[in-house]
């Protein structure tokens, strides 16, 4: 089964994304803690794309897909924005992020750190007309 959501690039739509993901995961046997981790990781990628790639332009949108298998769950976030390779992004030390945050309150830094710590595999596919982030969580893993 494959399910998809069209998510418009507005920060207020993140609540809709969470509702969609919670519903998608509602029939799984995952713990509430793990479900919340997965929702969070997908939201962090989407928020990153919405804010930094699409500048919160509400006429742009992302596609979010969920595929549930016996041994793993795959989330795919696809859009037509500029590529940004989160695999290349060097996750800063938490203390550095805190220091940076004193100077720039709006600064980010920990969203991608969360994604990397929660997911088992992150794959990027970049094409001239679209960009895809695939997040894979093996079940019964970390």
């Amino acid at each position, binding site marked *: 089964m494959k399910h998809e959501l069209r998510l418009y690039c507005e*920060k207020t739509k*993140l*609540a809709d994304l*969470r509702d969609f993901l919670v519903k998608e995961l509602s029939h799984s046997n995952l713990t*509430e*803690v793990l479900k919340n981790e997965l929702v969070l990781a997908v939201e962090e990628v989407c928020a990153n794309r919405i804010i930094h790639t699409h500048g919160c332009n509400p006429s742009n949108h992302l596609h979010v897909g969920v595929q549930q298998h016996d041994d793993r769950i795959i989330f795919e976030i696809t859009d037509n924005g500029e590529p940004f390779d989160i695999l290349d992004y060097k996750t800063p030390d938490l203390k550095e992020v*805190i220091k940076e945050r004193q100077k720039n309150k709006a600064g980010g830094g*920990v*969203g991608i*750190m969360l994604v990397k710590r929660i997911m088992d595999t992150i794959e990027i596919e970049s094409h001239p007309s679209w960009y895809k982030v695939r997040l894979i969580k093996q079940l019964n893993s970390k």
Partner: protein
Amino acid sequence: MLTISKKQEDNHMLLLLDGQVDASNSVELDEAIHEVVGQGHKKILVDGSELAYISSAGLGVFMSYLEEFEEQGIHFLIYGLSEKVANVFHILGLDQLITIKSSKEEALETIHEA
């Protein structure tokens, strides 16, 4: 949706968070903390028992005040987090940098000892 209530109790200021904190409303959390810090409160408690969700945007708000709390000698505690929300703090190691207690009683004990 996020509702933040402020309540002055005995010797501390209490912030009650109800709902979900994400990139769309983390500025509200920032404004609430900014206000109570600006009022000179030195003991600030956050009731997180009705906090259903927090993303990096919300965690970032707490992180942005850590040095200020230390410099100004502000005791800042969060209590009552659900297991799934506490887990998010734990993934980042923020539970080592912010005092997190399971109940209000424990939070008050810690603040009275301070």
